[in-house]
């Protein structure tokens, strides 16, 4: 009997001590420079009402691993013009049945930048939005990209081809302007995206330099942000294209570790790994 009582007391004491031990573990010094899994987890629930005209902060996307819903992919099939179809058919898209060794995706093969709009619909890992008085910056973790969105009321440029002092150079992320449509919806329009080596989507949809892309950043709660995108590009599409919806969850403590693509490293990866691994075909 005495042994039994001692065992019970020891067991109860152990149970009482467990939380203390766990607390001691959680009180262990934490480096602010380390990456802790809980900091890459999406907040639960809406977290309260969305702040007015404020997207500032760090956000988790679907490929962050943080538990964010999957995006809605661009409409398929795309409503292509004959020229758009011709460009589209030249693209060998990596995916089921087509490996990295098969694709001619310039990002996978050469580390070329995604460019906009693909960098807002593919590899959506994490995003930071930062605002200064005349601009909003969108910082993307995948490939360490920043987009500059002017909010000073200027118009979009219109000339990217031909001769003349008013012709603008196409850029990978194009030229962007933004305004608040209401207290919770920030609208961004972008044009002038370099089109020679970029795809608009991972599915290989084309875009021209004159495409105009409209994004609606709608913050429905403190924790929820949805970006809905459409593209108008009459040379390549017969009507505006629905480019899908991308979801983000606010996650203020996450850390952006480097995710650049180094051309020499990707060439090594292709030579040593992806190309030898092949296409999925039997020998």
């Amino acid at each position, binding site marked *: 009997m005495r042994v039994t009582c001692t065992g019970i007391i020891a067991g109860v004491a152990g149970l009482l001590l467990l939380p203390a031990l766990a607390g001691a573990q959680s009180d262990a010094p934490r480096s602010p420079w380390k*990456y802790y*899994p*809980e900091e*890459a*987890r999406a907040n639960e629930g809406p977290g309260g009402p969305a702040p007015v005209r404020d997207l500032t902060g760090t956000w988790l996307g*679907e*490929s*962050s*691993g*943080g*538990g*964010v*819903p*999957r995006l809605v992919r661009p409409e398929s099939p795309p409503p292509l013009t004959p020229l758009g179809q011709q460009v589209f058919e030249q693209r060998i898209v*990596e*995916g*089921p*049945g*087509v*490996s*990295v*060794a098969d694709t001619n995706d310039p990002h*996978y093969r050469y580390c070329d930048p995604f460019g906009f709009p693909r960098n807002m619909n593919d*590899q959506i*890992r994490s995003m930071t939005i930062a605002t200064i008085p005349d601009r909003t910056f969108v910082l993307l*973790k995948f490939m360490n990209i920043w987009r500059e969105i002017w909010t000073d009321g200027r118009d979009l440029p219109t000339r990217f081809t031909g001769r003349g002092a008013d012709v603008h150079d196409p850029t990978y992320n194009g030229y962007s302007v933004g305004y608040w449509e209401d207290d919770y919806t920030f609208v961004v329009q972008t044009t002038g995206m370099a089109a020679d080596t970029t795809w608009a989507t991972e599915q290989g949809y084309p875009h021209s330099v004159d495409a105009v892309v409209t994004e609606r950043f709608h913050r429905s709660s403190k924790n929820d942000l949805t970006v809905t995108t459409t593209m108008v590009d009459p040379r390549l599409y017969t009507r505006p294209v629905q480019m899908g919806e991308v979801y983000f969850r606010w996650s203020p403590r996450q850390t952006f*570790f*480097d*995710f*650049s*693509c*180094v051309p020499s*490293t*990707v060439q*090594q*990866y292709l030579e*040593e*790994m*992806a190309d*030898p*691994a*092949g*296409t*999925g*075909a*039997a*020998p």
Partner: protein
Amino acid sequence: MKGYLLVAGVLSLGLLTALGSPTFAHHSNAAYADEFTEFTQATVTRFAWANPHSLIFFDATDAEGNVVNWVVETAAPQALRLIGWTKTSLMPGDVITIRAYLARNGNPAGRLNKITFADGTELHDTQLGGDEGGKTRYDPHGFRN
């Protein structure tokens, strides 16, 4: 494949789950078999902690006594950090047990399932690191979306 300890992974609904869940995925795994193969007494020759995928090179002896150098890919460093990997998780000379989904074309290449060290500790792939086999994900923190 012949000569190595072949452990049949389970081709199951897990495969569908893996294909439908792109978290952390940089590209698809069409090149790799649906069942994993296990190598025991594999010796690490190089570990490349790099984007877009970290690479593990190791020597394994086949049934004919030939030493073959294999390469197995896993996730990018930023994803591996979240599940316990570091740049020095593997060092040349480490002797490990390694499971991988091998290239269908027969080349000595594959995608990692998991590594087991002599002391029993494990390191998993994110995308195909599930213990169930069948190309299931590894998700210790409940991050699945």
